[in-house]
């Protein structure tokens, strides 16, 4: 079986994000980029499927769309245990919206069919969670989102996935091929082993640009974007706090007065 894990190259969650002076994008200088933690779930889900179902004879491909440096997340996927890596990279892909990204991914799957596609529930950069469902739609595959467990049917023709919904759990049965986006709680991603990290550098990466995917500049141009990032602004600085001084009784009275009359919180 052919298994695909979609992986995204994003700023680390603790990175201090700065916006470029012209507000066009975030400034990547000095920011450490990693695989989105939810994409680690997508890779781990694929690895565990392969390890627990020898009969399925699974082969795992990791795929990313991103700048040249994004190849790092494929190296991470290799170090965790992925067999193949596909890097979709082209200046024309810069600034694509989610539907645009899904279209490029779908184009990459024209000649290569996968039985199961794992995506993360969302990436931790923009938190939109749209690429997975959009890709499933474009490929005509069933999609189950925010999955927390999967049971595989006999012969891997079907699967039963569970997802958390408000106050309950939803159980969804799907036919394969299908796309799952994985939530926290299904699998605990492994750390890439150090020998795995070393070997990952030597593994070939299948790099594809727009031309290789048969996509023209016109198709990818801003005219075809359904949404467009208008600009970036850093969050406003936090207003300074206010400090009350005096005797405890006075301060308590003043605090109650502020909460009631000025802030209207009580």
């Amino acid at each position: 079986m052919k298994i695909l894990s979609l992986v995204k190259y994003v700023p680390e969650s603790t990175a201090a994000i700065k916006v470029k002076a012209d507000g066009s994008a975030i400034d990547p200088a000095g920011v450490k980029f990693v695989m989105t933690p939810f994409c680690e779930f997508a890779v781990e889900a694929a690895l565990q499927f392969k390890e627990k179902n020898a009969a399925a004879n699974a082969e795992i491909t990791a795929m990313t769309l991103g700048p040249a440096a994004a190849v790092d997340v494929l190296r991470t996927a290799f170090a965790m245990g992925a067999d193949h890596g596909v890097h979709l990279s082209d200046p024309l892909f810069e600034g694509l919206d989610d539907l645009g990204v899904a279209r490029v991914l779908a184009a990459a799957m024209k000649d290569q069919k996968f039985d199961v596609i794992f995506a993360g529930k969302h990436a931790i950069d923009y938190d939109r969670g749209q690429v997975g469902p959009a890709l499933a739609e474009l490929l005509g595959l069933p999609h189950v989102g925010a999955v927390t467990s999967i049971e595989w049917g006999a012969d891997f023709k079907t699967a039963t996935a569970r997802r958390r919904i408000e106050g309950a759990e939803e159980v969804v049965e799907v036919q394969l091929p299908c796309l799952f986006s994985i939530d926290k709680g299904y699998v605990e991603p492994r750390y890439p082993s150090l020998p795995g990290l070393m070997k990952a550098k030597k593994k070939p990466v299948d790099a594809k640009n727009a031309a290789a995917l048969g996509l023209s500049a016109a198709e990818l141009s801003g005219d075809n974007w359904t949404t467009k990032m208008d600009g970036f602004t850093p969050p406003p600085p936090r207003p300074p706090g206010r400090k009350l001084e005096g005797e405890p009784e006075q301060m308590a009275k003043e605090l109650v007065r502020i909460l009631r009359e000025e802030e209207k919180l009580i």
Partner: protein
Amino acid sequence: MTAQAPAAVITPDTFDFYNVRSLLTEDERQIQDAVARFVDEKVIPVIGHAFDEHRFPKELIPEIASLGLLGCNIEGYDCAGLNHVSYGLICQELERGDSGVRSFVSVQGSLCMYPILTYGNEEQRQRWLPGMARGELIGCFGLTEPDGGSDPGTMKTHAVKKGGDWVINGAKMWITNGTIADVAIVWAMTDDGVRGFLVEKDMAGYTSRDILRKMSLRASITSELFFDNVRVPEANLLPNVRGLKGPLGCLTQARYGITWGGIGAAIACFREALEWAKVRVVFKRPLSHTQTIQRRLADMSRRITTAQLLSLQLGRMKDEGRMHHAQVLMAKWNNVRIALDIARDARDILGAAGISIETHSIRHMLNLESVITYEGTETIHELIVGSQLCGTQAF
């Protein structure tokens, strides 16, 4: 030499003031990052509690093994085959978490897998090393005895050949991993000088017990080993070494890793003191706005920087096969000393908060009292460097 206008504004990294990381290869940096992540996510969140409970977090062993940290600088036998600088960086990151966790890895790799590889035969290597790399078999190293550690030549534990077997009698003390070990590398006096034996946990007459109520390395197992007429087959004798150079050769490997470990502990304490000094307001200003505190923090940074450069050069020499054991001792002496001094000073800067298990510096400080003592005390290190310089051994 010409002076040139600076191309860009350079801001030194707070925890790597001389950008020593730029001297590492890409592989080495990646290894350091991978282990740092493991330490941040898995070790630091649990280690204060483990220390408090006087418990070694054994549950970390499978992940330590699957990362490839056990015997990582051994080539073959399912080991990672990394260079010695990488091994050092691993020790540094682990000890940034806790000296006990680093000790576990040092003992398994440098004190147990190294002698099996170097002094053992092929059968012994095949039997033990792959399982030890996977963390399924644990080793311990028995050299120090209840009556002394710095003077191993006078050890009382002895082995006598009887029939085809060796019969070992004696006791070993302060043995890391002792009660969880599947195999003990035991050094015993024979008619032929000191020899090394692989004593297996189920061998009759071999017992061990934990040393409890420690004030240091509380998140690590420290044990006593007892040998009461333990019969060990000839096949368990390490055939390729005789004399004290056997155990001392292992100690050189472990001490090398400790030089890096000291940097990790020092950085953890320095970071904690610096962060505290920036937010702790005393006499209406943060501690970090005062000259006294700035001088103390600057001195921590200076000492960490020298230690980083010392260990890296040591590691490069080791990787090139031109490292002398006295050079390892100078680095262990320096780096553990600076780490202990920084830990004590950081604890002091933290004020009353610094005595709580919720802060790291006091734990590192207590641990480093062991680290400055084990695998050669600071005094012994000074005297060996002294004997190297003067040409005469003064002890």
